[in-house]
């Protein structure tokens, strides 16, 4: 259920629950994903990946593969080492940051299991796959660095040449920054001190469309189609990495089936396919299998989080100290190093901490490298602080919402500058929380919880709270500069007025399933007063949309959408002199509304002139004011002045079967404040999908490696992704405090659900079982972990560190004749 309470003109498109215009072609088989692209003479690439997490390559014999039917070429690291450059890391978080070179094809060493050691090019995909199996590689195995804490202690080295596993230490301290007090002092003087350590497990962004690349080298430019979130960044990075003029590269992101950050990357496979196409002179395609995707597409999260929260006995928080150890994996990808740092400003969340310190140690291991995954840095922060606020409430024996409210920023205090130095422009945590409690039936559920507790019911009930905020709308370029990020955070848009009255909108924010076409059309329809259907949104091809910074970080609407508005306004401004000319009026007397210019004071019945009529007049250019260029088209590049700060209150009720450890979601209510809404359907879709992804971190998903660095959750058999059958109907609603930093008054929504939901679920499960002496359960909260926690809490069994991927040594598992086919 959803209430839209913004008031809008009846004809307005913004705020309407338009069905997404891009869906028809997607669901009727007219989609064009990269793998659908077939070019004359196209060759196919298969990657040879080797199983060792850490090994020296001592020899590669590709002769059998070379001779295999249909094979055109086999490329090894040696063949490309002078052309492949090093894959880019655009975010050196500190000047001293250490990182190994990052080859697309490993040359003499593999640093994680799944790294490419050779590429086979053949006339068919099957021939390439057959031949890939024949490439014979000899290795000398090296000791892999698998455990994050051991890696941080430099016990073994993931990259011996680097001399350490520690890539960078990034620190923010409110006393040093002048944004707050000294946290050590707060800790020293604390009346209540809560110290906890949490594990953010490793996750895999499991987008629906596997990655795929096609490179056509036969035209004047190299054309690359790629299942990417970032065609513009990819084009620039390819040019820089491979020393090819940027003007000779065209990147197209056709239909892209999801990304969740997993396609915010410049991948080895993109570089390899490019090199292979250049070498063979033929169009080449590579499409990954799901196993390859799980193994070698970048992963997400993977941190240890140590937190110290200082408070007064009355519940007022006085300081927060955060020490993170973040797993980079084997290499630094595009923004690997910056992901945990994106959380730096968010651990303090909606609370008025007077002092704050954040330290993050980035560490290399011999695992798949990590990078952006939906929320990127902020889910980690939200999880930790929302868990801590529950811990504080428990410590004080108080209601968790009450303790939060005592400490959060009141609605009349906005704009509010936080201890991390950000200025939150707007928000109303009281309103969202009140609405959420009402929809949830908070008091009734608490009463039921008490009843079940009292009766010792087998199924216990727990209630979890998460009152989150996040910073999104990445990002003001100046802030990015201060964080040493390698690019800005602006976005570009053009509006083209076609002579027939249709409008083309070009956006640099390349969508991959979010519904930009629909939302942008709604915005432009309102701005220019043209029908929704008459707006065509073009994106994702660097030759059409030549400029842009793409889609991630919940930035598209608040940055890219604002650029569209600016461009549309420029169109109107450009049309104004012509309108005045046609209407024989003074420019200053013109009014523009609903797509028409009219003359102020010329009476009700006047016709005025339509913008689309002016577009035709400009096309003919027969009679333009002196000096006017024959074009109404306009470009705008918008650099946001601030982040966007959506917030909300999420309440979750979980039932825990204390006999089996199985938990079941009973109710989930979220009231989000994402400012003004352009399309409520799309917002609901983002919230629902986001919730499932966040809940999945709490309950289901985890990438597990064995001690040799082999990914044992290498397929969906073991990487337990939920489906709709595992979810319940969520109750979603909104409160609205418009953002003051963009014309729409909108805030980002792409990541909100994911960021908020994880701690709500974990807090709920813990709330159900704390009575048994349980204080923490690691994510994902599998039935076994929950059961063991209860057993241990009750003092009846030991809890292993984690669910073991395999057998315990010495555990018998042979079949005995007695158990065959039946038991005695």
């Amino acid at each position, binding site marked *: 259920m959803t209430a839209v309470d913004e008031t809008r003109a009846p004809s307005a498109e913004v705020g309407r629950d338009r069905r997404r215009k891009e869906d028809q072609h997607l669901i009727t088989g007219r989609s064009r994903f990269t793998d659908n692209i077939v070019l004359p003479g196209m060759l196919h690439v298969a990657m040879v990946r080797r199983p060792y997490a850490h090994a020296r390559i001592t020899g590669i014999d590709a002769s059998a593969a070379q001779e295999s039917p249909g094979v055109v070429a086999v490329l090894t690291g040696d063949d490309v080492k002078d052309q492949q450059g090093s894959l880019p890391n655009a975010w050196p978080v500190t000047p001293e940051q250490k990182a190994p070179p990052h080859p697309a094809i490993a040359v003499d060493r593999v640093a994680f299991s799944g790294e490419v050691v050779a590429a086979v090019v053949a006339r068919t995909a099957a021939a390439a796959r*057959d031949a890939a199996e024949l490439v014979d590689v000899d290795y000398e195995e090296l000791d892999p660095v698998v455990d994050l804490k051991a890696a941080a202690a430099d016990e073994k080295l993931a990259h011996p040449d680097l001399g350490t596993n520690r890539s960078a230490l990034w620190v923010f301290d409110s006393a040093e920054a002048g944004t707050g007090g000294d946290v050590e002092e707060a800790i020293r003087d604390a009346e209540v001190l809560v110290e906890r350590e949490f594990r953010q497990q490793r996750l895999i962004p499991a987008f629906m469309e596997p990655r795929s690349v096609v490179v056509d080298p036969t035209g004047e430019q190299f054309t690359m189609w790629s299942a990417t979130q970032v065609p513009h960044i990819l084009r620039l990075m390819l040019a820089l990495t491979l020393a090819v003029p940027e003007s000779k590269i065209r990147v197209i992101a056709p239909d892209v089936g999801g990304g969740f950050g997993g396609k915010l990357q410049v991948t080895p496979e993109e570089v390899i396919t490019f090199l292979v196409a250049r070498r063979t002179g033929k169009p080449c395609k590579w499409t990954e299998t799901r196993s390859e995707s799980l193994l070698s597409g970048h992963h997400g999260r993977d941190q240890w989080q140590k937190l110290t929260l200082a408070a007064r006995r009355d519940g007022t928080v006085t300081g927060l100290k955060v020490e993170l150890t973040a797993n980079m994996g084997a290499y630094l990808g595009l923004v690997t190093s910056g992901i945990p740092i994106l959380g730096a400003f968010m651990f303090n969340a909606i609370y008025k901490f007077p002092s704050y310190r954040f330290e993050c140690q980035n560490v290399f291991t011999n695992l798949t490298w990590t990078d952006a995954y939906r929320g990127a840095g902020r889910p980690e922060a939200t999880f930790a602080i929302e868990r801590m606020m529950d811990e504080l409430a428990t410590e004080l024996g108080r209601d968790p919402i009450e303790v939060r409210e005592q400490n959060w920023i009141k609605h009349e205090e906005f704009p509010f500058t936080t201890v991390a130095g950000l200025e939150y422009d707007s928000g109303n945590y009281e309103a969202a929380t009140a609405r959420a409690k009402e929809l949830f039936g908070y008091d009734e559920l608490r009463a039921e919880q008490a009843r079940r507790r009292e009766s010792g019911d087998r199924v216990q009930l727990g209630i979890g709270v998460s009152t989150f905020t996040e910073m999104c709308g990445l990002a003001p370029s100046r802030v990015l500069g201060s964080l040493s990020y390698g690019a800005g955070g602006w976005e570009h848009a053009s509006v083209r007025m076609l002579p027939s009255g249709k409008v083309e909108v070009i956006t640099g924010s390349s969508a991959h399933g979010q519904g930009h076409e629909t939302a942008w059309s709604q915005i432009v329809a309102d701005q220019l007063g043209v029908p929704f259907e008459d707006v065509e949104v073009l994106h994702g091809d660097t030759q059409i949309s030549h400029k842009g910074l793409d889609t991630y970080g919940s930035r598209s609407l608040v940055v890219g959408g604002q650029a569209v508005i600016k461009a549309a306004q420029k169109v109107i401004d450009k049309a104004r002199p012509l309108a005045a000319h046609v209407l024989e009026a003074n420019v200053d007397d013109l009014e523009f509304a609903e797509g028409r210019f009219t003359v102020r004071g010329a009476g009700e019945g006047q016709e005025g002139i339509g913008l689309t009529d002016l577009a035709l007049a400009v096309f003919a250019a027969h009679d333009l004011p002196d000096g006017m260029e024959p074009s109404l088209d306009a470009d705008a590049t918008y650099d946001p002045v601030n982040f966007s700060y959506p917030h909300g209150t999420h309440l979750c009720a979980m039932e825990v079967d204390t006999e089996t450890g199985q938990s079941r979601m009973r109710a989930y209510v979220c009231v989000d404040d994402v400012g003004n809404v352009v399309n409520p359907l799309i917002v609901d879709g983002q919230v629902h999908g986001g919730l499932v992804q966040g809940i999945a971190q709490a309950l289901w998903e985890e990438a*597990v490696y064995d001690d040799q660095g082999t990914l044992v959750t290498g397929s969906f058999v073991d990487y337990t992704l939920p*489906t709709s059958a595992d979810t319940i109907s969520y109750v979603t609603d909104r409160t609205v405090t418009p953002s003051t930093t963009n014309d729409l008054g909108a805030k980002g929504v792409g990541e909100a659900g994911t960021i908020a939901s994880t701690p709500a679920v974990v807090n709920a499960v813990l709330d159900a079982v704390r009575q048994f002496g349980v204080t923490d359960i690691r994510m994902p909260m599998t*039935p*076994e972990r929950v059961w063991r926690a209860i057993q241990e809490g009750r003092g009846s069994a030991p809890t292993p560190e984690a669910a073991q991927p395999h057998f315990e040594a010495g555990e018998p598992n042979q079949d005995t004749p007695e*158990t065959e086919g039946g038991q005695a």
Partner: protein
Amino acid sequence: MIPAQFDYVAPATLEEALTLLSEHGDEAKVLAGGQSLLPVLRMRLNAPGVVVDISGIQELKEITDQGESIRIGAGATYQDVLDSPLVREHLGLLHKAVTEVADPQIRHRGTVCGALAHSDPAGDVGGPVLALDATMEVQSRGVVGPRQVAAADFFVDLFETAVGDGELLTAVTIPKHTGWGSHYEKFVRVSHQWAIIGVAAAVRAEGGTIAEAKVGLTNMGSVPLRATAVEQALVGLAATEEALAEACSLAGEGTDPPSDLNGQADYRRHLAGVLTRRAVLAAAGG
């Protein structure tokens, strides 16, 4: 994922299929629904010379009433079994278990006999078939008439059954359990998952008391298991939770379940006790 090359033959008759299997020996692989075979081929964990597709053989598709029992041919898919009024009426336990197998797409292709021949300890139909005292019908060329193998002798080990090279499992015959209450309790973390463990229970109750009980366990060892001790202990008990609890708690005892990402052996043993109680109770209508 592309399998290595293989020859593909789709015989139209059982006779032809048996001939092909005897010709090709261990180079041949039978393809029924392909839901287990194809993933293995695509992962290139096998590269047979010949794949013999039996899904086009009409005579294998039938589900027939044999008087005392129901015979399910090797070509019958899970969906055929679900749709069969015979199964619903006489083999409630199998019907229930099949509803828990994978998802509709897989149930429309995968076959019950394929699953039995595959003998995956986490497969959902092994336990029920064992508990219901089924008999497997195995045929090969040059041998007159089918070889009948009792379910208890059929499952040899992990992925290993009494079906040898050149042999085909042609049907499973299951005695009717008309009027029995039944329940299949499948324990999973996400809905489409293989059973972490499963408990199959069929109960014949007389006036609120258990007259006869059959209990099969999924994924509690390298083959489906029959909880015979529990079955015996249940006889004569009232169909109430209190009465059943102790007998059922024994279900995991003496078993040797796997330890993996979803649970250590001790947890599985614990679950077996709890879920057996729930399954029996549900089967007994309690």
